[in-house]
């Protein structure tokens, strides 16, 4: 046993140095590191996907090919459940939950677990995208770097945003989309203190990806020329994309619900889903994998199938993705949204041509792009992400006007029909979507235990009014909690107003007993109640303060005035 109070540790010295640096500069430095890590994760995932897909290619031509997605999904669920001990899914809601409720804390294992599990799912033919797992990975890298350097909650949350931005930027080679996705979907707030580090992370993530795998654009650049008629027709694709997004979201949620009712191990459930995907893949091979090749073919106007088959392939892709992710496979919905959108756009264009063959409609690729933006904006309910991602991955800035139109119409329609996006569904149902500076977030940060006012004078039920007079003279409050003199249990409240008629009649001072005067039906709250519920109770009962009672024992009062005071202070902290 040795004294250690004399020598500050190296870690402490490092912490002190970090805190001396200007906060913005500090965040920029860490953002660059996080962006680099996220970019590296994206490159590793891309490489793994490519290599395993190539290795499995010969097997796709055999009769047993339909089993491959089952094997991949089953192995992925086994890996996540038994080796990493994590739940299935793509992880984006978990990242948002950590940002909203846990100051951006994420487990270290999440930085690589989804990379491996999604590789197994997608490379074997499962219908899912690699973007959400890499977002989870990048966010976890950001969170753990922030944790290692003891950054505070707000800075850690920014680092989570940096990780997400770096990941999306690197995997799509789309830095602006990465920034927009991070602030629109993950963080839900645009502030200069967030935006600058996120921008830096995005640039570094993209550069790492370009350095290691070249400046590749996922889909070929093409020049599209849209007439006014095409822009008008884009309203139709917006509605179609919106409806497809709603159908996709509902089918996905429904599959998750139904599959969890199956009493079977996770790996078996995922394997069953994978088998169904494999069978769908026999009829529509375009539904397998992440599907970027299908999107490329459509944008280049080389997709051969006719209108009916394209429409069926769209439906099959929606089903395949729902089965893959809904039954426990690992992967995201970004890439499937692109495939569904492009197939939907192609079907729409072919429908237009079939109905009005004389009109010189824009190329198939143009409508495919609009479909991609529409489905992505609708499903994620993040129109800006949809617009910027499509512009960047296709390099088609000249179609930005119809893209904006389609994205906003689709997102609005989806919001009307399905108010909560797939990412937020579970969080909203549990009351966990607490965006910064919103009423719900501020209230969730207030704790009754910190707001209890203990300056109440407790009286007993068998006291007479005469005993109360000196208490009233000295009390600063106009209500008095009443307890049982033997057990100490809380019985009710007496308000000064209830006593006033008897106070000035000395003849009643010995006749009035507190037990008869108290309000026994006064609503009470527990110290662990949510502040939102407490305020609702105050509003319903038109009361300004309520007693806090735990296991029949009075702890103090909580009042609207104190809550408002703390609410303001909290608001100042969050907006600073």
């Amino acid at each position: 046993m040795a004294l250690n109070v004399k020598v500050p540790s190296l870690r402490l010295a490092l912490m002190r140095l970090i805190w001396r640096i200007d906060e913005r500069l500090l965040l920029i430095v860490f953002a660059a590191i996080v962006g680099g890590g996220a970019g590296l994760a994206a490159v590793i995932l891309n490489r793994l996907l490519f290599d395993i897909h190539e290795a499995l290619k010969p097997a796709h031509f055999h009769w047993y090919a339909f089993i491959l997605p089952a094997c991949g999904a089953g192995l992925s669920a086994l890996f996540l459940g038994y080796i990493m001990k994590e739940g299935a899914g793509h992880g984006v809601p978990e990242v948002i939950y950590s940002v909203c409720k846990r100051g951006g804390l994420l487990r270290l294992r999440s930085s690589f677990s989804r990379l491996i599990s999604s590789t197994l799912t997608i490379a074997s033919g499962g219908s899912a995208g690699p973007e959400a797992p890499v977002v989870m990975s990048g966010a976890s890298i950001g969170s753990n770097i922030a944790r290692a350097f003891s950054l505070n909650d707000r800075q850690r949350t920014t680092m989570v945003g940096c990780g997400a931005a770096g990941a999306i930027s690197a995997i799509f080679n789309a830095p602006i989309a990465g920034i927009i996705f991070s602030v629109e979907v993950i963080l839900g707030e645009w502030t200069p203190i967030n935006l600058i580090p996120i921008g830096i992370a995005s640039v570094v993530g993209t550069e790492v990806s370009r350095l290691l795998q070249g400046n590749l654009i996922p889909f070929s650049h093409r020049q599209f020329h849209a007439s006014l008629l095409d822009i008008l027709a884009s309203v139709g694709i917006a509605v179609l994309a919106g409806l497809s997004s709603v159908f996709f979201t509902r089918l996905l949620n429904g599959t998750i619900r139904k599959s969890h009712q199956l009493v079977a191990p996770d790996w078996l459930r995922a394997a069953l889903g994978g088998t169904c995907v494999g069978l769908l893949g026999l009829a529509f091979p375009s539904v397998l994998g992440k599907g970027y090749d299908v999107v490329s073919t459509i944008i280049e106007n080389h997709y051969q199938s006719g209108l009916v088959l394209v429409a069926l392939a769209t439906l099959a892709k929606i089903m395949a993705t729902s089965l893959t992710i809904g039954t426990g496979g690992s992967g995201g919905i970004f890439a499937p949204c692109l495939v569904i959108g492009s197939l939907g756009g192609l079907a729409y264009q072919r429908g237009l041509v079939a109905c009005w063959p004389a009109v010189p409609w824009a190329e198939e690729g143009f409508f495919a792009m609009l479909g991609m933006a529409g489905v992505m904006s609708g499903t994620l309910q993040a129109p800006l992400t949809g617009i910027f991602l499509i512009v960047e991955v296709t390099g088609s800035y000249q179609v930005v006007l119809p893209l904006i139109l389609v994205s906003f119409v689709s997102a609005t329609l989806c919001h009307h029909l399905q108010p909560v996006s797939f990412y937020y569904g579970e969080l909203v149902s549990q009351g966990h979507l607490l965006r910064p500076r919103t009423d719900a977030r501020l209230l969730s940060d207030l704790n009754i235990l910190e707001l209890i006012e203990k300056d109440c004078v407790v009286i007993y039920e068998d006291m007479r009014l005469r005993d109360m007079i000196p208490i009233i003279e000295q009390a600063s409050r106009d209500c008095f909690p009443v307890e049982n003199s033997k057990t100490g249990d809380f019985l009710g409240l007496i308000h000064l107003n209830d006593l006033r008629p008897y106070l000035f009649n000395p003849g009643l001072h010995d006749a009035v007993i507190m037990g008869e005067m108290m309000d026994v039906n006064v609503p009470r709250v527990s110290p662990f109640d949510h502040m939102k519920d407490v305020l609702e109770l105050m509003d319903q009962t038109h009361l300004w303060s309520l007693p806090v009672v735990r296991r029949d024992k009075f702890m103090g009062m909580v009042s609207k005035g104190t809550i408002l005071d703390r609410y303001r202070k909290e608001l100042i902290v969050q907006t600073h």
Partner: protein
Amino acid sequence: MKPQLLHIFRNTPFGRETLLESCYFCRTIEVELVAYLPKMSKFLMYFENDVVQVDLDSSFLSSPDTAKEHATSIIRASGLEPLFFDPEDFTASTLPDIPTHFDYMCCPRSIVDLSSKIGLGYIGPRVRRIVQSARFPVYIPNPVFKEWKSLAVLFGGSANAVKALRLAMRLSRLSGYPLKVFTQLEGDSRQDYDRVIKENGLEEAVEDWTIFETGRLKANLYEVPHDALVILGAYGHGLIRQLAFGSKMELIQTVLPNSLLIVGPHCAL
């Protein structure tokens, strides 16, 4: 409000012993016992700057139909009121969050690995992480229930050891049990320790203070009473020193079979 101890209940004979230990601890120092009956094999604990996933071994989930009944009867028989904790927040549908606002937490030496591994000298990695991150002291009970009748603080002079000594003083007052302090001189002189005690105003706590000036710590630990609750600080040194020389707490727990109450570096008393 009374302080609370969180106990993760394991519905096995081993779990019964640790629950009995927790009940005795709570009764002795007037703490409420909050039992969590796990329904899922893992949970998360979000600390101030860390998140710890605890993957419970299968014995924690055995016989769920009798778990509540068993826990209730043990707690009632100890003269405490049974309080059960139901998680409200979930990071994922199968991953409940366990709050970290408790005042104490009872952890067996391991809550991840199979109980066959649990023995002297083995502290599971998750328990270590909890000790390192928690704002509450962690109670590591005996594998078999044994009442403790005194308190022993192993005082090494570090900031954490000072916190442990303060906690021991409080527990001694609450329980009425005597407090003994043990120190192994390693490089520093007795005056150095006296100075730390004086600076922190802990003179009252060291009335019964045994200082080992010779011999190795491992051998000297024999002097610690067999029926004492041992309270000690842990992981108070920097990362590099810890990597180079190891943790004193880790050494002590390999030798002492007593119940331990460990005060980690982030413990707020």
